[in-house]
């Protein structure tokens, strides 16, 4: 990272570089874009993957934190910060031309903090309605319910998107451009639609049967979790992570627990680590099973749906016996796990492994080579490796496009450096490769469980932790590989018992942001198939 520091100083001479948990660079808003451009174009280690774009309200200043990484080496991370003191009309420069994933994130920052981004082609609010009064994530937000009342009258969705563009001679032009063309035929898919996997709303412009353009309209389940976290103590916010991506509940919670543990310097007992990883992998299998089942259901195979949920019930039974939860397992706590495993845990898990393997063969036999399934999935929804990196699509979908992005391999946490497993990578990038990746990852997860299940050491399952945890001042990051991709937690602490700001990096948001490019030019029936193959969970997008 020495040469990176030199590069930063060469580009922006007055940048402030600090060694915190990660290398942190603070620059003025004007210098941000040139700096990120230089980092992006660095040939040896290009910082071409924007993990997370975090809006911040530091009191007197409003700003953005960029967490960058390189697609070549995910373990190299860099934090870039910028801020503006203008609270009335805050303007920052957009980085959408470098990282496509910034587009939806910047729109979210606008809705939550009121920061507008120059050169972002579409600056409508994301997640919230256009007529929302105030910016909820600002510290001085007025949360009087009368300002934003619940109403029962459906409003029209505006088709004009405002934007601010900078001309070559440095002038700012404010303008509005139409989202769709004048004579476009637009249909609404969602928000109450059985095949959008939740309350997603795609406004789809069609040319006959061919999709011309998709406008992603989300926020029908935006619950303001990150804002709620700011009023709660660390152990109290744990349960929110389970309700983000509920299919990988345990893994999300693992990320937050690790983030707090690392910041507070809490040592987790070995036994707890083993239980965590085994539960994580079981959770991953159940997540992939639902993804597989729902994807097959989207392609018309209801039998597959029933099969997938049937196998999942075996995992849920194990969860149920361990900690009393089925879907949302309240197992991880700061310092370890809440409940020890039950006496027959090993026996049950060991019985499940061969059962699941047998069923994987069955799945393969009756659906993976089915002529209709192949016709619907092969060469449909092609995602190139460049796009996957630019949009930040990780998980089985990113690895289906040939990008090695498994957090367990590149930034090993917990016990993942000690277990042996393959990272499943396919290079075709179509729906079928994403489909196959999930089935193969189930096999790898079984392999990981096999290595750990007989070696669970004796001892405590939870370290002694005070009920109120105060994290030292600073910024803390932690990523895990959840069922859908890289799930990240960011905490900024000011030394209080509750966090100053919490942000979750959502893998599903990246997945849904590629929907417009994947489905462009495809048939409308394949839109459902593509969204099934990307496997996003809406509460994870909306948070």
């Amino acid at each position: 990272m020495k040469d990176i520091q030199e590069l930063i100083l060469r580009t922006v001479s007055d940048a402030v570089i600090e060694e915190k948990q990660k290398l942190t660079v603070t620059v003025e808003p004007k210098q941000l874009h040139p700096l990120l451009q230089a980092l992006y174009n660095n040939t040896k280690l290009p910082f071409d993957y924007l993990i997370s774009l975090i809006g911040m309200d530091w009191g007197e200043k409003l700003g953005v934190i960029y967490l960058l990484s390189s697609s070549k080496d995910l373990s190299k991370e860099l934090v870039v910060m910028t801020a503006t003191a203008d609270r009335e009309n805050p303007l920052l420069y957009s980085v959408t031309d470098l990282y496509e994933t910034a587009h939806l994130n910047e729109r979210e920052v606008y809705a939550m903090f009121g920061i507008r981004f120059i050169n972002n082609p579409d600056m409508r609010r994301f997640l919230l309605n256009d007529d929302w009064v105030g910016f909820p994530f600002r510290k001085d937000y007025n949360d009087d319910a009368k300002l934003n009342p619940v109403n029962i009258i459906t409003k029209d969705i505006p088709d004009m998107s405002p934007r601010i563009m900078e001309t070559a001679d440095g002038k700012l032009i404010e303008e509005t451009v139409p989202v769709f063309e004048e004579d476009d035929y637009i249909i609404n898919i969602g928000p109450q639609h059985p095949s959008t996997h939740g309350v997603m709303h795609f406004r789809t412009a069609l040319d006959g049967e061919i999709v011309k353009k998709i406008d992603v309209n989300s926020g029908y389940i935006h619950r303001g979790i990150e804002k709620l976290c700011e009023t709660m103590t660390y152990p109290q916010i744990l349960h929110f992570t389970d309700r983000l991506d509920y299919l990988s509940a345990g893994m999300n919670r693992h990320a937050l627990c690790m983030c707090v543990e690392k910041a507070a310097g809490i040592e987790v007992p070995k036994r707890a680590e083993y239980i965590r990883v085994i539960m994580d992998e079981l959770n991953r299998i159940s997540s992939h099973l639902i993804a597989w089942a729902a994807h097959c259901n989207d392609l018309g195979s209801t039998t597959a749906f029933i099969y997938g949920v049937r196998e999942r019930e075996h995992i849920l039974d194990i969860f149920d016996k361990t900690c009393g939860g089925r879907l949302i397992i309240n197992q991880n706590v700061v310092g370890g796990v809440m409940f020890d495993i039950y006496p027959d845990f090993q026996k049950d898990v060991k019985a499940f492994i061969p059962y699941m393997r047998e069923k994987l063969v069955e799945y393969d036999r009756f659906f993976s080579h089915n002529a209709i399934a192949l016709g619907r999935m092969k060469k449909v929804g092609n995602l190139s490796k460049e796009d996957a990196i630019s949009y930040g699509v990780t998980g089985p979908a990113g690895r289906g496009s040939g990008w090695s992005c498994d957090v367990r391999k590149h930034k090993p946490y917990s016990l993942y450096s000690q277990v042996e497993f393959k990272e499943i990578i396919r290079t075709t990038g179509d729906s079928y490769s994403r489909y196959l990746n999930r089935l193969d990852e189930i096999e790898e997860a079984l392999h990981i469980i096999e290595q750990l299940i007989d070696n669970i050491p004796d001892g405590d399952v939870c370290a002694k932790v005070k009920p109120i945890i105060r994290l030292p001042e600073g910024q803390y990051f932690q990523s895990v590989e959840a069922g859908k991709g890289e799930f990240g937690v960011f905490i900024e602490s000011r030394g209080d018992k509750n966090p100053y700001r919490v942000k979750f990096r959502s893998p599903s948001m990246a997945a849904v942001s590629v929907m417009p490019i994947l489905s462009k030019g495809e048939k409308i029936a394949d839109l459902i198939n593509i969204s099934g193959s990307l496997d996003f969970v809406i509460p994870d997008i909306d948070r």
Partner: protein
Amino acid sequence: MDVNKIYIKGIAGEDFKDNDTLQQYIDELNAGGTNVIVGKLDELIDWGRANSLWPLAFATSCCGIEFMAAAAAHYDLARFGMEVTRNSPRQADLMVVAGTIVNKMGPLLRRVYDQMAEPKYVVAMGGCAISGGPFVNSYNVVNGADKIIPVDVYIPGCPPRPESLFYGLLQLQRKVKVDRFFHNQRPVREYNPDTLIDPKTGEIIDTKTNPDK
């Protein structure tokens, strides 16, 4: 916020198992002053209706997955005649509100409800649909689906297990059985007007005086 010792008072298991009292209550309600012929016809129609409630899963979040699990082979919702989950509100008798309802979703929930044909019933599944659940303090969460539409049965849990979903749905069946098709004596369900504020005038919408709104 202070963290003190919190404990939740348990509910006695017997309370859940006492179905005989409820059944007796239904019989009494049905028997009181009923015409012999019309009463029997009512019973027949209610029997048919109660055992073929077609649900519309208004699944916004986690509870939707538990609803899916309940509909699949292991728990098998078909045992109660409810396996035909309709995706069109026009074909559904029962709306299962499974998940958080937020401000942006409010109008759409009402719209889907209004599209359903009478007689229609609503089940609020899970803490969020009952009261806002863990997100009750959020700026964007509606504190319960009953702020927007009338609710018949509330099923607590976060998310409720399929067993509790079934318990709630069986209670709904009992409720359906006291309906009277020929007397039109269905229990009156009122809208909760507390939060229904007209965005233009800022006035509270009273559904009794302005039924079109």
